[in-house]
């Protein structure tokens, strides 16, 4: 352990000497000075700044909150719109009542008013087939 530490230090010294032979120490010190120049109180405020950023990240951003709000509004609009369309166009057109709710008088009146239609339809069918019901009846009479 100590041996490897010693080797590390001696190789580090050797490497440092190689670098310093390339750039003199003053130049390297100048580079370090440049690296070390930081705004005043930078490190004193850094941890506070980081914590503030973390707290801000925890809160959803205004854009996310707005987009959530707009999604909720869109869903609400769809639900209300669909309800409005269904109640206006479908339910009103398809108003139905049960048969027992219709008064008997109305049913009788409907049937009697439409009885002639049944008769007319029957006559049309007979004409179409070409049956002569009167002839048949007369032959029956003749047998008697």
């Amino acid at each position, binding site marked *: 352990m100590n041996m490897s530490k010693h080797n*590390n230090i001696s190789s*580090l010294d050797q*490497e*440092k000497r*190689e*670098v310093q032979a*390339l*750039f*003199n120490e*003053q*130049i*390297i010190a*100048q*580079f*370090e000075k*440049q*690296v*070390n*120049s*930081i*705004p005043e109180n*930078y*490190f004193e405020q*850094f*941890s506070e*700044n*980081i*914590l503030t*950023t*973390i707290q801000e*990240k925890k809160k959803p951003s205004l854009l996310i909150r707005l987009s959530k709000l707009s999604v909720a509004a869109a869903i609400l609009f769809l639900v209300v719109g669909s309800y409005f369309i269904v109640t206006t166009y479908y339910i009103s057109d398809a108003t139905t009542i049960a048969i027992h709710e219709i008064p008997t008088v109305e049913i009788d009146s409907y049937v009697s008013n439409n009885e002639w239609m049944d008769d007319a339809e029957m006559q049309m069918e007979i004409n179409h087939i070409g049956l002569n019901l009167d002839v048949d009846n007369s032959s029956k009479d003749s047998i008697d």
Partner: protein
Amino acid sequence: MSRSLSNLVSMQSDQIIIERFQAGAEKEQHFTELVKRHQQKLYYQIKRIVIEHADADDIAQIVWMKVWEKLEGFKMESEFSTWLFRIGYNETINFIQKRKKLAIVHPLESLDTSNQEASTSNGPKSSQIQIKLDQAIMQLPEKQRFVFMLRYFEELPYEKIAQITETSVGGAKANFHQALKKMQEIIQSD
């Protein structure tokens, strides 16, 4: 936070602070302690590579944000500082590569040393060498630059440098010597 508690926290090892953080008690306080302990080394490690304070500050903030997010799952298989510097290394490399993609040239990379006037008390020659040193460092591939800085300025053993840069010890040594050779070539080119 009371003064005595603050003193107690500052005497603890990184490991104890991380365990407390992971236990969920007063996370902000323990995180702040870690930041205070390691912020300077991390910042200078980054700044030696990117040179500009604003860039170093941006990267350092990203690194600490990552630490906050990932500290919960840190298994302490390596030292906290090694893990932190590895995140710093990766984020700095990402930053440089993004800048390259955007074709943003660092001011030091575009300096023409032949036209530089002497501006320091050291006279024209040292000023030019100073610029050459900056330029030489900026012209090194990112990994070599990192290894050179960690070895020369941070005086880290190659084992730790290898862990930070995710390479072998031999690879780290080779990177240092290649960096030195390349800088020598740049210096002697004029």
